[in-house]
C-alpha cells in the first residue's frame, strides 16, 4: 500500500472561463458574479479514473477539497482534518501539514500557481507531489501535463524524482497584462520521462541531473576571471556553481561574487547598480526557466533593463543541463525594454556540461 494525500483547491481555474486571470483573493467573488463554473471536479475525476494501481490508500481533505471526488471510486480512503465552508489558502496549508504528519508517500493536489505556492509553504520538499493542472495560471513547471500524465505519475511511484519550479506571479500585475514573476521555490515531482518506451535510443545513458550540474559548475568555476564581478541568478544550477566556489547561495535570489568571495547576498536592482558602478568588468550567470526558456523577465526580475545594459549582452553566461536546454524550442527574453530584448536576440551559447555547450536561438 502507498499512502497518497489528496488536496483539491475547489475554486481554482474558475477565473479562466470568465476572462479573469486567477481566483486568488478578491478575484474569486468576481468570478462567481460573472457566472464562473468550477472546472476542478472534471480534472480530479479524470485523474482518479485513469489510475491503474489498486494498492493506494488515500488520505483526503473533507468535502469539495477531496472527499467528494474520491468517494465515487473504489479506492480505500480516510478523511483528514476540518475545513471552513468557504475554503481559503489557509485550509490548503493546514491540510497539507496534517497529511504530512500522517506520513503520506505522495501528495496529489489540484489547482494552479497559487495552490502550488501554498503547498510549497506548507510542506517544502518533504514528500514528492503530483500536481493536477486545473488553475488559470500555471507558469510553475511542477504541473503534470494532463490528468493522464498525473495518473501515470501516481502509477509509477516510487520512481526517479526531480525538482520543478514554483513561480510566484504578482496577480494584480498579471491581471493588468504584466507578468512579474519570481522563483518561489521547488517541489519534488516524479519524473515521468523514465516511463517511456524502451529501445536502442532510450535515455538510460543520461547521467544523473545532479552530477551534470556539478560538471557545469566545475567548468564555469574554472573559467571565472579574477578581475570580474559575477552576478549569479536564481536556481539550483547556479547553486551548484556557488557550491563549487564554496560559498552559500541564496537559492531564489541574486548573489554577487568577486574573486571567489560573496560580495552581495540576495541583492535587489539598486544594490546591483551600485556594485556595477564599482566594478568595471561584470558578468551575469543565469539559467533558463524549465519549460518556457525565459532567461530574463521571468524568475529574476532584479535583472532590469538598466542592469542588463550596464553588463552588456556579451557578458551573459547561460548555464543549464543538457536535459533542460534541449527540451526548449528557444530561449526567451522579456525584460520590459524592447531595445534591450532586441540586443539579446540571436543565437547564444549555453554551458550544458564540462566542456560541453549548446548553441540555441534567443527570441
Amino acid at each position: 500500500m502507498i499512502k497518497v494525500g489528496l488536496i483539491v483547491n475547489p475554486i481554482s481555474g474558475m477565473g479562466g472561463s470568465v476572462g479573469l486571470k486567477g481566483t486568488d483573493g478578491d478575484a474569486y467573488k468576481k468570478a462567481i458574479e460573472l457566472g464562473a463554473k468550477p472546472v476542478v471536479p472534471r480534472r480530479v475525476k479524470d485523474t482518479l479514473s485513469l489510475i491503474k494501481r489498486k494498492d493506494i490508500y488515500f488520505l483526503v481533505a473533507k468535502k469539495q477539497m477531496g472527499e467528494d471526488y474520491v468517494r465515487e471510486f473504489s479506492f480505500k480512503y480516510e478523511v483528514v482534518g476540518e475545513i471552513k465552508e468557504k475554503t481559503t489558502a489557509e485550509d490548503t496549508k493546514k491540510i497539507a501539514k496534517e497529511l504530512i504528519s500522517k506520513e503520506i508517500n505522495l501528495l496529489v493536489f489540484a489547482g494552479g500557481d497559487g495552490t502550488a505556492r501554498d503547498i510549497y509553504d506548507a510542506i517544502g520538499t518533504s514528500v514528492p507531489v503530483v500536481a493536477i493542472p486545473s488553475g488559470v495560471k500555471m507558469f510553475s513547471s511542477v504541473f503534470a501535463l494532463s490528468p493522464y500524465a498525473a495518473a501515470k505519475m501516481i502509477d509509477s511511484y516510487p520512481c526517479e524524482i526531480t525538482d520543478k519550479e514554483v513561480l510566484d506571479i504578482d496577480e494584480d500585475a498579471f491581471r493588468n497584462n504584466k507578468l512579474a514573476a519570481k522563483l518561489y521555490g521547488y517541489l519534488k515531482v516524479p519524473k515521468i520521462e523514465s516511463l517511456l518506451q524502451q529501445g536502442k535510443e532510450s535515455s538510460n545513458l543520461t547521467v544523473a541531473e545532479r552530477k551534470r550540474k556539478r560538471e557545469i559548475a566545475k567548468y564555469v568555476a574554472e573559467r571565472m576571471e579574477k578581475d570580474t564581478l559575477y552576478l549569479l541568478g536564481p536556481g539550483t544550477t547556479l547553486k551548484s556553481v556557488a557550491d563549487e566556489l564554496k560559498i552559500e547561495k541564496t537559492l531564489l535570489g541574486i548573489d554577487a561574487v568577486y574573486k571567489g568571495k560573496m560580495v552581495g547576498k540576495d541583492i535587489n536592482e539598486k544594490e546591483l547598480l551600485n556594485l556595477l558602478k564599482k566594478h568595471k568588468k561584470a558578468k551575469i550567470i543565469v539559467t533558463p526557466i524549465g519549460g518556457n526558456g525565459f532567461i530574463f523577465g521571468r524568475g529574476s526580475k532584479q535583472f532590469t533593463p538598466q542592469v542588463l545594459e550596464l553588463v552588456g549582452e556579451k557578458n551573459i553566461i547561460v548555464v543549464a543541463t543538457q536535459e533542460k536546454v534541449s527540451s526548449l524550442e528557444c530561449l526567451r527574453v522579456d525584460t520590459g525594454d524592447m531595445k534591450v530584448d532586441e540586443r539579446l536576440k540571436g543565437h547564444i551559447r549555453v554551458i550544458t556540461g564540462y566542456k560541453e555547450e549548446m548553441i540555441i536561438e534567443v527570441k
Partner: protein
Amino acid sequence: MIRLHMNENPYPPSENVLRAIKDSINNINRYSELKYADKLKEALASYNNASEKRIILSPGSEFLLRELINIFSGNRKLIMTNPTFFPALKHAIRNARKIIKHQLSPPNFELNREMILEELYEPTLIIVDNPNNPTGKMLLDRKFVMEILKNKDILLLVDEAYYEFVKYTFADLVDSYPNLGIVRTMDKSFSLAGLRIGYLIAGDFFLKEIYDFPRFLPIPTLFAAREALKNPEYMEENIRKILIERKRLESGLKKIGVTVFSGEVNFLLIKCDIPELSTILMDRGIMIKDLSTDWIEGFYRVSVGLPEENDKFLAEMEKITNNPALKW
C-alpha cells in the same frame, strides 16, 4: 505491438536474401573468412560507384559512429546537432574533448551555418546526419559542405543512414576531400536491421587513421548484405511503397489536426499537444518515438509501417485526439 518507433523497414528482405542467410548458418561454428568481407566491400564499392579501398565495414552505423568519435574527437572539438541520432550524441557527450551542440528549432529546423563556420578556428570534427533524424530535413548542401571541407583541420562525417530514400549524397566528393567520410547503413532501406550492417566511405585522412577496425562481421550479415546488393530493385520497390504510405499517413494525421513536419524519409516528425502521447499509444499496442526525453516536449517521430499498421495508428490517433480526458 506495432513498431513505429525505430524507423525500421516494415517489409522483410527478399526470398533470396532469406535463403542466403539460411545457407550461411550451416558453417556457423566457423569464424567468418576475410574473403566474405572483401566480396561485400566489392559489391558496396560498385553500388556506390566508389573505390573498394574506401569501404570500411561495421556492425551497424551506430558502432561505426561511436568508434569514429572515439578515434577522432579526443584531440578535436566535436560539433553535432540536437536532435540527431541520439545514441551517437550521447556517446559523444561522454567521450569528446569538447562538444558544441546546435539546437534545431521548429518550425524550420535549420542549421545555423554561420555559427558552424565561426567555430572552425581549431581542429574540429563535425558529424551531421543528412537528412536529419528525427526532423527528416536536409541540413547540408554541396556548397556548404565544400566550404567546410576546404579547411584541412576540419573533419566532416555525414551520416547518410537514409540515403536511399532521398538519393542525395556527398559520396562522390570523398576522392577529392581526404577529410570527408560518409556513414551508411543497410539496416533500414535494405530491411536488414536485425543483422546490423553499416559502412563508411572514407576519405584518405580517415583511411590513414583507422587501421584496426573489426574485419570479421557475422557470416549471415555478410551473406545477406551481398545478396541484397545483387537486386537493389527489390529495395527500391519497398522504398516506393513506403514513400506512398508516408504521404497517406501525413494527410491522415493532418486531417485529424495533428501538426506534421514534412520530411523526405521513412518517418514523420509530428507535434501533438496531447501529453504522454507515446505512453497512451503504447497502452493501445503501438510504439512511436517520444522525443521529449532528448529534445522538445510534444514532438514525436513516427516510422511508416505496413498499410494496415498505419491504418490502426491513424484510427487510434483519431480516438485519442477526440478524448477530452487525455487533453490538457
